[in-house]
């Protein structure tokens, strides 16, 4: 694991959103989740590119849902965490927590 680079901030957030949304994770819901939870507005294109990049890395698996008329007869592209994605998320979270450990108060004081 020494050589594995950690997730970028946006990647981290997106993976967490996918984790939270479970079966309902697709581009629109993920963007809404990020906006409503942490006020982070992600543009459409950035969302797709990030999701696809992580799918390419093997952290997410895309799958197609059912087409719906509301979507002009097009299906949703859902994303689910893979074991590798889970691992990466855990690893990044652990790294952050380790760095944070015992230092929150330094910032809160300031």
């Amino acid at each position: 694991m020494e050589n594995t680079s950690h997730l970028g901030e946006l990647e981290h957030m997106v993976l967490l959103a996918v984790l939270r949304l479970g079966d309902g994770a697709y581009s629109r819901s993920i963007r809404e989740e990020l906006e409503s939870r942490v006020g982070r507005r992600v543009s459409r294109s950035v969302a797709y590119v990030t999701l696809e990049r992580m799918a390419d890395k093997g952290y997410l698996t895309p799958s197609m849902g059912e087409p719906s008329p509301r979507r002009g007869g097009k299906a949703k592209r859902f994303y689910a965490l893979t074991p590798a994605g889970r691992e990466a998320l855990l690893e990044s979270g652990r790294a952050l927590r380790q760095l944070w450990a015992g230092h929150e108060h330094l910032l809160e004081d300031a």
Partner: protein
Amino acid sequence: MNAPPRLASFLLRLAVPDRDLRAGILGDLEEDLACLGESGASPRNPHLWYWRSILGLSARFTLERARLRRGGIGTRRLDHKKNRRPPTLETLRQDLAHSLRSLRRDAGLAVLAVAIVGLGIGACSTVFSVANALLIRPLPFENPGELVLISNGDWKRGQALSEISVQVSHLWALQNDSRLLSDAAGFFLFDGVGDHTLTGRGEPERLARLSVTANFLPLLGVRPQVGRLFTEGEIPFTGPGPILLTHGFWIRRFGGDPGIVGQALTINGDPMTVVGVLPASFDFPTVFAPGTRVDFIAGFPLSQETDQQGNTLALVGRLRPGADIRAAQAEAALLAERPYTGDGYRNSFDPRFTPLRDHVSGAFRAAVLLLAGAVGLVMLIVCTNVSNLLLARGATREKEIAIRAALGAERRRLIRQMLTESLVLAVAGSSLGLLLALTGTRGLARMDASVPLLTEVRLDGAAVGFTVALTFLATLVFGLMPALRLSGVELRESLGESSRGHSTGRRGGWVRGALVVSQVALCCVLLVGAGLLGHSFLRVLDVDLGFRPDGVVALRLDHSDYSAHPETVVAYYEEMLRRVESTPGVEAAAVTDVLPTAFNRRWGVSLPEDPETRAVPFVRVVSEGYLDVMGLSLVAGRNIDPRDDGSSRRVVLINEALARALWPGQDPLGRKLSRSRNEYEVVGVVRGTRYLHPEQAPGPEIFFAARQQSYRNLSMPHVLARGPGSPTQLAAAVREALRPFDPDLPVQQVVVIQDLLNRSLSPRRFLLLLLTGFAGFAIFLAALGLYGVISFSVRLRTREIGIRSALGASPSDLRRRVLSDTLALAGAGMALGLVAAWMLGRVLQGLLFGVASTDPVTFLGVAALVGTVAALAGFLPASRATRVDPVQALSAGGGAGV
């Protein structure tokens, strides 16, 4: 529901090749739009919203992909392999796929472009194949570059064969004493087609013999397919000897049975032993005597007797490697001047050496080069036309190109993309072209024309290579200009222009205009060329032959029994004539020994009182019906009649030219002339005939009475019959009348005199046919080009036209405006083209007959034709302009431009 614009979706497809992802994205977009609508925040222009969203997405994905390709950032082992593919191959694949997709969308245009390119390349490859056979490809002999034709003086059309042929003793001198020729051989020039009759094997048949010296075939490097060649020692002076069959005759008559070798065939009553069969590749007529045929080859004996027969042989020599043809000719001239030591007489010999290739196709060089030039012009028109089509199409694609350029497509990549598109067109077009050329060359090879090596015309590797090269060249020429122009388009400019409803293609207007002007000009040059040749052809057809060939058929006759008593021979011919004359459907019949265009035999005649006043007229030995059958007109005196027989005074008819030559300014009737110890009285004068070739003015002619010659001395006796029925009916009637009379007479081959003349015009017809085809194609393309440009400009100016018509311009005003645009372009092209044609006309001079290269009729005709076609091409768009609805045109705004 608002669907995204097609062009935008297409753009997305380029940026996001993954179909599922794209579906997901488009679905999300629709959902977004629906949500916006529900929250009352729907965009004012959904179209624009889509464009903005998709542009952003596409840009981001394109950037991402570019980043990945460069190796990117981070660990991407999975991607790594995928992007390792050589970028050039990968982009080529993408370019190809994109080209196919985009051409499929414009299927009509693609089909048109492919058809135009196909026709152009087909024409080019066909003409190349002709040029290849006639001028480029080596003759079908061993080391053909060393072969020379040796004639006695210059070998020109219409020259008497006895003047260009050579005596046997001169051949001996060359064979024995020339140091620059490795060998020399001869072929007999006076074998008449049908001099020989095959009997004893079913239906009797007239055969065409070729007599050659024993070393003729070895000198050319011809080896027999079956059996062997004959040797010098086997050739008898007369009587039975060894023969070789030509491949065609062997297949036709003996079904290709090799067992025929060793058997004897009865030819003219003699048993001739077949010793071998020649390969199909040896086609003597196609090289040496186009339009004739050879069935079998016999040996020509080189002996004292044949030497004393005078000038009989045409010679072919083989230069020693490295020998200079002029040095060899000079050497031969020295040999010919050595004092003669043999017995008998020896004629003079003025040796002229011509490379065999030049002798064979030299006369057609100009015509073939003309065709090559013409086809080059056609190809130029094709290229400009396709360029124009692509430009017009490009104008409607400017937006797409602009967006792709904005998204980071390099200019080089865009150019390559567009060149790929024209390559796809060119490859499809040249495939079609090759098919057409295959058909074209086959058609030409089967054409029965007196053009040498025509049967050798075929599509070979060289032609295919030529086509492929042409394809790439064409791609560059017709693809590069649109590609360069379009790839320079700026996004803002292009989108901005079209959104204001302006012409997107106006800047390209002058380019397209210039292309159309040059098309019209090139087309005029071709039309003038074809027009001049066509006019010449009409002149040739119109020429006064001095005789009427229509409605006359001829059947070869022989009384081959040379030992028969003269009276028997006369009786044979007279009875034959009587039977033909009394055949129903026959109006008149006669015997002649020379057919039109067939054989130019000349005899010397002189005045008995003044042997120095000589002439060498063209000779025919005829019966008294001849003038009637062939339609010659008697100018003075009387015709030969039945009383002119062996017991009466010898009489002749002469033509005006001979009368002028022998008795200038005097009345020739009753005068005497002598010919080899006999004196003849001139009883009649006839008008001259163009008997050898319609394009050759009549020379001196003389007619002997066949009966007074006891029907001997006949070169190739034929019975002629004239009748009102069709030639086929007439031939059948003559055949049925004669069959019971002489069962050994081959009656199958009846000659239609008109066919002989048509054949003599076939090279001219051949050239005219091809050139007219090209010119027709050219004017079609020019019309298409004009139509395309004008209708496009009408479409671009819909708004302007709408305003004009709203302001009260009448339909006829509008129509006149558009038509005058068309005619201005066409007029500029015509002016250029006609001036160019006027300057280039000299090139044609040698091929014209009775027409000047600046023939005003042709030039005016071409101008009228092009003007009419241009007006027609402009008429459709013009009438479309009159139907523009001002309200629609003005409100359509942005839509009108695209």
